[in-house]
Each structure stands twice: as structure tokens, then as C-alpha cells.
């Protein structure tokens, strides 16, 4: 019972600008100009004070920090790119150097091989030449020896014939003659 009355009274009070008698009432929905003006004044003063002492510095520090973070991030990004570029460059250089070294090594190997082959060929050549020379020399010597031997034998035969003719000799004498002949022969 009381509850029904209670709520109806509240709603009644809440929604009525004016009482049924027409007299103006202060209810929840009636605007009081005084309070309204106070609100506006307080808000404006607050806005002024806070703008000067709070929002200004706060926004400044906020913006500064955001700017510095943005700058830092951008700088970090730039540095990272730079580092990556450098790294790539280094890698390229390294691979180039590697390749160069490999190439030089191969070149050197080639050169050495060639040199060795040249040397070998030259040595073989030389040896062959020397052998040929020696052979030719020997041949020449042989021919000359044969010639001189032939001459010698001819003259010896002639001499021996002369001696045989000169005296008829016994075998001991013959031996003597040969010995003496041999002794008369040049030593070499």
C-alpha cells in the first residue's frame, strides 16, 4: 500500500513542472538559472586555469614524447636499413673476394701447371738434344776412329810386308818384330 503511494508520489514529483494548482514548483525538471550560470562560470574558469596550468604542459610533454618516440623509431628504422645495406654490401664484398681468391688460385694453378709442362717439355727437349748430340759425337768419333784404324792397319800391313820381305825370320824373330812394332805404335 505504502509502496504504491510512495512511487506514485515520486513520479508525480519528478515529472511535474507545475503543481496542478498552477503554482510554479521546484522539481527535478525545472531549470534554475542561478545554478546554470554558476555551472557555466565554473566551467569557463576551470577551462582557463586548466588550459594554462595542466593541458598546456601535459599536451606539450605528450606531443614531445610522441615526437621523440616517432623520431626514435624512424631513426632506428633508418639505421636498420643502413645496417642491412652494409651487411649486404659486406656479404657481396666477401663473396667477391672469395671468388677472386678462388680465381687467383686457379690461375696460379694453371700457371704452375703450364710452367711445369713447359719446363718438362724443355727438359725433355734438352735431354733429347743432348742425347742426339752425344750420339752424333759418338758416331763421328767412331767414324774417325775407324778411319784412323783403317789407315793404321794399312800402313802396318805395308810395314809388316816390308819387314817380311826384308828378312826371313824365324818365329822368335817374328815375335820380336811384332813386339817391336807394337811398341812403336803410338800409345793411344
Amino acid at each position, binding site marked *: 500500500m505504502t509502496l504504491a503511494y510512495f512511487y506514485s508520489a515520486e513520479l508525480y514529483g519528478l515529472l511535474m513542472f507545475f503543481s496542478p494548482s498552477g503554482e510554479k514548483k521546484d522539481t527535478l525538471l525545472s531549470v534554475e538559472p*542561478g545554478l546554470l550560470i554558476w555551472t557555466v562560470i565554473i*566551467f569557463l574558469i576551470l577551462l582557463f586555469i*586548466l588550459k594554462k596550468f595542466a593541458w598546456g604542459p601535459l599536451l606539450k610533454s605528450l606531443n614531445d614524447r610522441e615526437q621523440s618516440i616517432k623520431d626514435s623509431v624512424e631513426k632506428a628504422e633508418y639505421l636498420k636499413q643502413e645496417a642491412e645495406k652494409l651487411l649486404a654490401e659486406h656479404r657481396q664484398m666477401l663473396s667477391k673476394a672469395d671468388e677472386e681468391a678462388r680465381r687467383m688460385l686457379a690461375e696460379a694453378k694453371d700457371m704452375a701447371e703450364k710452367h711445369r709442362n713447359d719446363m718438362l717439355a724443355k727438359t725433355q727437349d734438352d735431354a733429347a738434344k743432348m742425347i742426339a748430340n752425344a750420339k752424333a759425337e759418338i758416331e763421328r768419333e767412331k767414324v774417325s776412329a775407324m778411319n784412323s784404324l783403317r789407315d793404321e792397319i794399312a800402313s802396318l800391313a805395308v810395314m809388316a810386308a816390308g819387314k817380311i820381305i826384308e828378312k826371313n825370320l824365324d818365329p822368335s824373330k817374328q815375335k820380336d818384330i811384332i813386339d817391336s812394332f807394337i811398341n812403336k805404335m803410338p800409345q793411344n
Partner: protein
Amino acid sequence: MTMFTFSAPPADTVVNVPLKEEENWIMHHIADSKVISIPPFEIAGITIDLSLSKNILMLLLAGLIMIIVFSLAAASNSRRKHPSGIGNFVEMMMVFVRDEVVIPSMGPGGVKFLPFFFTLFFFILFVNLLGLVPGMSTGTSSISVTAGLAIITFIMTQVHGIKNNGFVGYFKGLIPHGVPVFVLPIMIIIEFLGLLTKPFALCIRLFANMTAGHIVIYALIGLIFMLGYFVIPVSIAFSLFIYLLEILVSLLQAYIFTMLSALFIGMAIHQEH
């Protein structure tokens, strides 16, 4: 108490008990009461009573707390390179208002209005929250206070709309393009009413939201005296629930009021949207 005198409700709802003024205690708790009286004066037929009342004290208190809190935050933030403590918290809220409320509603041009929206947001928030402190009253549960705030938004909207589009351009821009001539008279009336309903809606929304929770809490507590002590657990549990809900509502209403204000001002500045 003296300002709330009701004539008795219709007889069919009133059973037995005649209404005594003292029984209308909910209204007493919600309504304003004078602290320091200043004699009212009259301008253009409106009686203006600048007496300091409970609600004005609450507004002043909220303002004072704001000045202290934000000055401390500013000092804390300019001292350090990285924010911490109160400066960090305030900055988080500021970034929220800037990035979630003002910039989406107004575009990048909203940055120069930031101090206004910060003040609006935190003022409403602090007044709302102050009303949840036992023994205090909620400034924003008075329609005069919310009307004051709505009028500030209204004036900001008109001033910046006119400033950016020119006086004629602004009022011309209110009417959408390509409207047939015969609809124009109606459109002009509708758009003009629209100008006024926007702040009116702002005012009523904040007022109603902040008042409703309090009325419900008072009513729930009132049940104890209406029905007897056995409802105490229920009353307390429900009151606590509503109370927690009101913390959410305080934040939400500050956010909505600020966002709609930003939207209205943004729309007045960029009328083509």
C-alpha cells in the same frame, strides 16, 4: 525540504496515509539545497538566484580536485621523460579522449579543441564520480548543471560553425543539398529545431542517467523502511550492484557527452558531411 511540497496525488493512488513533506525524502536527497543565500534578482522576467547551493559546492570541489590532480600530473610529466604514476594515468585518459573521442569525431582539426574537450570530459567525470562518494551529491543529477554544460557545447558549436563557414554560409549549410524548393520551409524549421534539440538531448541524457541510478539506490534502501528489516540483504546487494553500475555510467556518460559534443562541433565546422 521547503522547496518540495507536493499537492496530494489523486485519491485512488493514495491509500490511508496523507503525504507529509518529511516522507518525500528521496527528492530531498536528490534535490539541491542552499548553503549560502544570496538574495535573488530578476533579469528580463527570470528570477536568478545565485545562492551557493550544495550542487555548486560539488562543482567547485570537482574543479578544485581537477586543478590539483592535473597540475600534479603536469608537474610529474614535465619532470620525467617517461610518464609514471598519476601523470601516466592522466595521460592515458587524455590519449583516450584525443584518439577515441575527438579525432574520430572531428578529424585532425580537433586537436586545437583538445583543452576544451579534456575539461568537458574530466569535469563531467569528476562531478559524476564525486556524486558516488557517500555524503556528497551529484552535480550532474541537476538538470540546471547539465543544461549549463549543454549550453556551452551549443555556443561552441554555433561560434565555430559561423567562424568556419561564415554567418550566411553556416545557416545555408544546415539545409542539405538538393532539397526540393517546396520542402524548404519545413526543412528550415526542422533543421532549426535540430540545432536546439541536440544540446537539449545532451542535457537530458546526462541528467537522466545520473539521476536514475541515485533514485534507484535510494528506492532500494527505502524498501528496508517500507517492507521491514528482512529485505536488508536484498536491498544492500542490489544497491551495491547499482552503485557499481553507476561507476560505469559515470565514465560512459562523460564519454558520450564529450563524444557527441565533438561530433556536433565537428559537424558544424565541416558541414559537407
